[in-house]
């Protein structure tokens, strides 16, 4: 609470003086800074309780500024303050949404992930900055008195730069530590106080949240087919629910079909996808299939480990398939080769799972030189599946 007031007061003081920021920070929230804050706040805001309320609501450091800005925008009692306020209001136009409240409410990874999924750069930067802000706020709370002057300095630095640059500078700062004095958190974006709307912290935070929700709904609308005609939360949610249910049912149905249609064809599975991808190797694929089925002979008995029997078949397949079709066989042999390379069938599978896709390609490279076929196949598959925002997911 006091920290917030200190920050606001220091911010005001910095606007006025613009040079002894460091001094203010050093003096800290306790002594002269404290006195100054209260004077400033009383003069400008006339509502010292506001800061307290704002602090209680959400991450206090972030929240205070839009509130203070709103307060600045309305009453300019001191000409210097009005100058500062005017500058502040002017800079606010450059920025976009503020998310200090949501930082506290939804400060998890999902915030960062969703912007990475679909939104523009501004939102993403604001989200990222919001993420950084929260650890800062938490750290400030834990550190206490010693941290507060440093934090105030950083707040001022952040506020100044955010005043100047708005939403642009939010990406480059990256991980700001609390100890550094000129660390640029820049994690809050300023909300333009709209006319006729309340500018207190509650409604601002709610508005931010509502905008986020509407963003997500828009993305969902694009994702779910047939949602364009419907407008409104409830109906759209209906559509989404139906769609999710139908997708789940489809997955069940398809899995059952796969289970029946495909009793145990390990060999054809790798070639299947590549066949779909290349689409030119249809006839060659069928010939490959026939060869594989004949050579492998399906010795998969009910007992015994399937993989162990699979491996020697893989070896046979290698010799048989190589002369047929270079691209296809290279891909399939890549898979077989990988499985042959490591010892032990179960270990193979597990190590396969635990590694990344890149390492999979690595092993393929090491085994035989088919990384071209494998990587091309996967890339083309990804290209097929990708839509605009689905790309981010994968």
């Amino acid at each position, binding site marked *: 609470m006091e920290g917030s007031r200190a920050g606001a007061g220091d911010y005001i003081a910095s606007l006025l003086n613009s040079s002894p920021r460091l001094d203010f920070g050093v003096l800290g929230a306790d002594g002269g800074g404290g006195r100054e804050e209260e004077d400033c706040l009383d003069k400008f805001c006339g509502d010292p309780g506001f800061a307290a309320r704002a602090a209680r609501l959400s991450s206090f450091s972030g929240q205070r500024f839009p509130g203070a800005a709103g307060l600045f925008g309305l009453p300019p009692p001191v000409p210097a303050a009005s100058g500062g306020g005017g500058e502040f209001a002017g800079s606010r136009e450059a920025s976009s949404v503020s998310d200090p409240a949501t930082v506290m409410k*939804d400060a998890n990874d*999902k915030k*960062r992930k969703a912007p990475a999924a679909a939104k523009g750069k501004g939102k993403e930067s604001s989200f990222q900055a919001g993420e950084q802000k929260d650890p800062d706020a938490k750290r400030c709370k834990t550190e206490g008195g010693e941290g507060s002057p440093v934090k105030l300095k950083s707040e001022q630095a952040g506020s100044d730069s955010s005043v100047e640059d708005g939403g642009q500078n939010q990406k480059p700062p990256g991980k700001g530590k609390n100890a550094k004095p000129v660390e640029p958190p820049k994690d809050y974006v300023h909300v333009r106080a709209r006319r006729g709307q309340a500018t207190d912290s509650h409604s601002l935070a709610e508005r931010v949240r509502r905008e986020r929700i509407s963003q997500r709904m828009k993305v969902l609308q694009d994702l779910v087919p047939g949602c364009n005609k419907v407008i409104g939360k409830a109906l759209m*949610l209906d559509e*989404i629910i139906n769609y999710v249910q139908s997708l789940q049912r489809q997955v069940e149905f*398809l899995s059952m079909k*796969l289970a029946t249609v495909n009793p145990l064809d390990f060999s054809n599975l790798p070639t299947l996808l590549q066949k779909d991808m290349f689409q030119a190797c249809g006839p060659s694929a069928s010939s490959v299939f026939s060869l594989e089925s004949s050579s492998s002979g399906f010795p998969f008995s009910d007992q015994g480990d399937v993989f162990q029997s699979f491996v020697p078949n893989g070896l046979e397949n290698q010799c048989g398939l190589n002369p047929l079709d270079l691209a296809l066989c290279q891909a399939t042999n890549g898979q077989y080769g990988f499985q042959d390379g490591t010892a032990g069938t179960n270990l193979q599978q597990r190590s396969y799972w635990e590694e990344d896709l890149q390492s999979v390609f690595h092993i393929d490279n090491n085994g035989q030189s088919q990384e071209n076929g494998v990587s091309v196949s*996967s890339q083309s598959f990804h290209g097929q*599946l990708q839509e605009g925002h689905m790309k981010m997911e994968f």
Partner: protein
Amino acid sequence: MAQLLLSLREAGQASKSMGLRERRDAVRLSSDVAMALASARARPSAAPRSTAWARALVARHAAEQRNEALLRRIIGGAGYEMAAAAARVRKEARSRRIVRRSRRVCSGAAGRKRRSLPLAGGGGSRCSAMAATRRMVRARLQVLRSLVPGGEAMRGLSLLTETLDYVVCLKTQVELMQCLCKGSRSQLG
């Protein structure tokens, strides 16, 4: 990702002696795990861990005892242990959440009565319409929560995010399986 799914499918069909239903379940399980792994892999930098639905999905599969052998083979012993732990955590968390929510509902019902009375006196029809829509939205959010795995924990915005991810993954799952079906069918006939 396609390769993940494939290998999972192979692993899933290891025990050929299963009946049809079990096989389908094994197939579904393997594909689900594949999706979860894929999503976990797809976001190395954005999030420190996989999405909630992925974790919940794997945990849900791990909770059933009969899947144990299969899962163990697929994910590996270490991963399976993590999944089992996640399942246990989820059970506790879920019971805790239910208790908390019931408490909140009780207090909220009491408070809402007090709050709605002055509102109804002042707002009139508009407020009641808004309240009706809010109730509908809330009901649908509940349904969504039951649908999306791991969705009981979240509210509002995070729920929508999870739904988004889940929808994307479901879509890819369906497409992949369709391709596989087509391919295998062309092979046989």
